[in-house]
C-alpha cells in the first residue's frame, strides 16, 4: 500500500499516525510533508527508523519549492509528478493521511 502524507511532521500528527500502524509498503511525502525527509529536522530519526521496513519517497517539486532539495536524507528517493503517478499505479492501493 502507498501511504501519502502531506503535512509537516512538526505541525501535525499524520506522519506519526501513519508510521504507528503501517508495517510495510511505501510512504510518499508531498507538500509540507517533504520537510520530514530533510537532514536536521526533528523527524529525521523516526523517518530513518521507518526506512527499515518502508520505502520512502519525497516529491521533488515540493522540495524545490521549499528550497530543501539539497538536504534530502540519504535513502529517500525524490520523484516528480510522473513518479508520483507511477507509485500510485504500482501499488495495489493507496491512502492519503489527511
Amino acid at each position, binding site marked *: *500500500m502507498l501511504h501519502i502524507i502531506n503535512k509537516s511532521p512538526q505541525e501535525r*500528527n*499524520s506522519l506519526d*499516525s501513519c508510521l*504507528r*500502524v*503501517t*508495517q*510495510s*509498503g511505501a510512504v510518499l511525502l508531498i507538500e509540507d510533508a517533504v520537510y520530514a525527509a530533510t537532514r536536521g529536522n526533528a523527524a529525521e530519526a523516526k523517518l530513518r527508523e521507518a526506512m527499515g521496513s518502508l520505502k520512502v519517497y519525497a516529491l521533488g517539486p515540493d522540495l524545490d519549492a521549499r528550497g530543501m532539495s539539497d538536504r534530502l536524507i540519504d535513502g529517500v528517493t525524490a520523484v516528480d509528478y510522473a513518479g508520483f503517478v507511477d507509485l500510485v499505479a504500482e501499488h495495489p*492501493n*493507496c*491512502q*492519503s*493521511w*489527511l
Partner: protein
Amino acid sequence: MSEGAIKKFMFVNRKAPYGTVYALEALETVLITAAFDQDVSLVFMDDGVFQLKKGQQTKGIETKNFSPTYRALDGYDIEKLYVEQESMEARGLTEDDLLVDVTVMSRADMGKLMEEMDVVLSC
C-alpha cells in the same frame, strides 16, 4: 468494472467532531457508499475516536448534533466499525464511553486491515 461489482471501501476518521466539518460530511459519504451496496468499513483513530463519544450536547455552539447518526448506521447494514486501541487510550476513553458497539483493534491489526482495502478515504 461490471455491474454489481463490490469493492472494499474504508473510511478513516482521524478528526474530532465540530472543530471541522470532515466528520459530518464523511458520514454522508459513508451512507451513500452503503446505498451502492459496497463493503463498507469505518475506522476511528487519533482524534476521530472522539466522534463516537457519548453525551454530545451541541446547543451551546448552535450547531447540529450529528452523533445520533452513528447509532443509525446499523440500519444501513454498516456494521464494521473499528477503533484503534492506542488512540482510545491516549484520550482517556474506554469502550463504555462510545455511542455504538465497535471492534477495538491494535495498531498492527489496523495496519493489516488497511492493506486489504480497495478504496481508502481519509476524512
